[in-house]
């Protein structure tokens, strides 16, 4: 009986475990961390921790696209279009006035816009007339503060017109 037991044990112990899989240099990294994308304005939430493929943002230092595992950064938005590419490739555009964008090390991205609207809420004719008004305001502005305000209006309206054309 003991012999049978020993035999059984040996049989049971027989198949050796495969060696732990060591990562070779040619193997890819542990797997991309999906991007948790949050895009909101004070009154509306567009994406909250959503999984999207890519986001293009207009910042003061230039436009750039953010994919998963982007290097962490803090940026400030300038008036322009934010394009969100979903997992299936469809692109949705939003116009933002200003705000901030934060990319963290764990691949979470927060785009906080002071005002953000979908493109269908904007009217090209109104944008053009606003731009003309803003340019004339800037020409007529007397002191520094008024000039700066008019400048901001001009930039925003220019971006609007450019986005709609």
């Amino acid at each position, binding site marked *: 009986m003991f012999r049978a037991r020993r035999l059984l044990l040996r049989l049971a112990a027989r198949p050796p475990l495969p060696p732990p899989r060591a990562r070779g240099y040619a193997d890819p990294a542990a797997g991309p961390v999906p991007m948790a994308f*949050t895009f*909101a*304005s*004070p*009154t*509306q*939430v567009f994406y*909250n921790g959503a999984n999207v493929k890519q986001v293009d943002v207009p910042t*003061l*230092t230039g436009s750039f696209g953010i994919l998963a595992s982007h*290097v*962490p*950064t*803090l*940026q*400030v938005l300038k008036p322009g279009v934010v394009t969100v590419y979903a997992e299936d490739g469809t692109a949705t555009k939003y116009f933002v006035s*200003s*705000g*901030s964008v*934060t990319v*963290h*090390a*764990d691949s*979470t991205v*927060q785009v*906080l816009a*002071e005002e953000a609207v979908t493109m269908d809420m904007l009217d090209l004719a109104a944008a053009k007339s606003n731009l003309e008004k803003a340019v004339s305001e800037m020409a007529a502005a007397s002191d520094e503060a008024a000039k700066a305000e008019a400048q901001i209006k001009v930039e925003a309206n220019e971006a609007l017109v450019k986005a709609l054309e």
Partner: protein
Amino acid sequence: MFARGAVVALYQPQWGQVRNMATLKDITRRLKSIKNIQKITKSMKMVSAAKYARAERELKPARVYGTGALALYEKAEIKAPEDKKKHLLIGVSSDRGLCGAIHTSIAKTLKNEITNLSNAGKEVMVVGVGDKIRGLLQRTHGNYLLLTFKEVGRRPPSFGDASVIASELLNSGYEFDEGSVIYNRFRSVISYKTDEKPIFSLETVAGSESLSIYDDIDADVLRNYQEFTLANILYYSLKESTTSEQSARMTAMDNASKNASEMIDKLTLTFNRTRQAVITKELIEIISGAAALD
């Protein structure tokens, strides 16, 4: 037998202290005034309920926005170095009362924080959003008040309000190193909690070591970012605060209406008893008058 002297206690009938049984007119007057009060508190409750519904609806996106804005401070674990002296407290409340313990809880937290920080040797200044905070802190901690804001609570807060507060604070000239916003966080219709969220100055954030992992940041961008984040945090705390305040006012007015109805019931019973007593007295007088003639 009694010792002569003024030490003997004499029972003096007390004038004016004895309450006669209230006349019907007194009770009627009281009843009318309490009924009016009940109508007022009921209508205040309705108004608060409507404002609360709107505030709660607007709170949902504001919460996502606020947590997004605070994410940097949490993930980067920014902490001010211990030797920094200047502290700032922002207490967020409103102008109007009759909302339960909303204002007093903020004021209490502020006073405790002031005491703790002063004992630790730090310099503290307080910004009060809402007239009630000013009223509660003026007398005892008046010299700590840096700025106060009025006309809060009349209309629902917007991002513009938050940015006005942020810009006034940044222009005030008080170079704080770190601070916190003290507000009432909304938990449910019947409960809220006084909560604290940290804010840091530009120098603290720029000097923080965990900021080095963030790529490509120059001073201008960081300053812009910081100012925007400050406005965001203030906006979030304003939204939470309004929702808590409206729900607390709803509860307070509801309780007041219930108390008023209780008083009305009791008074109505007293009124009926008194009325019957008056009738009985008249009957007795008539009957005893008639009996005396026999």
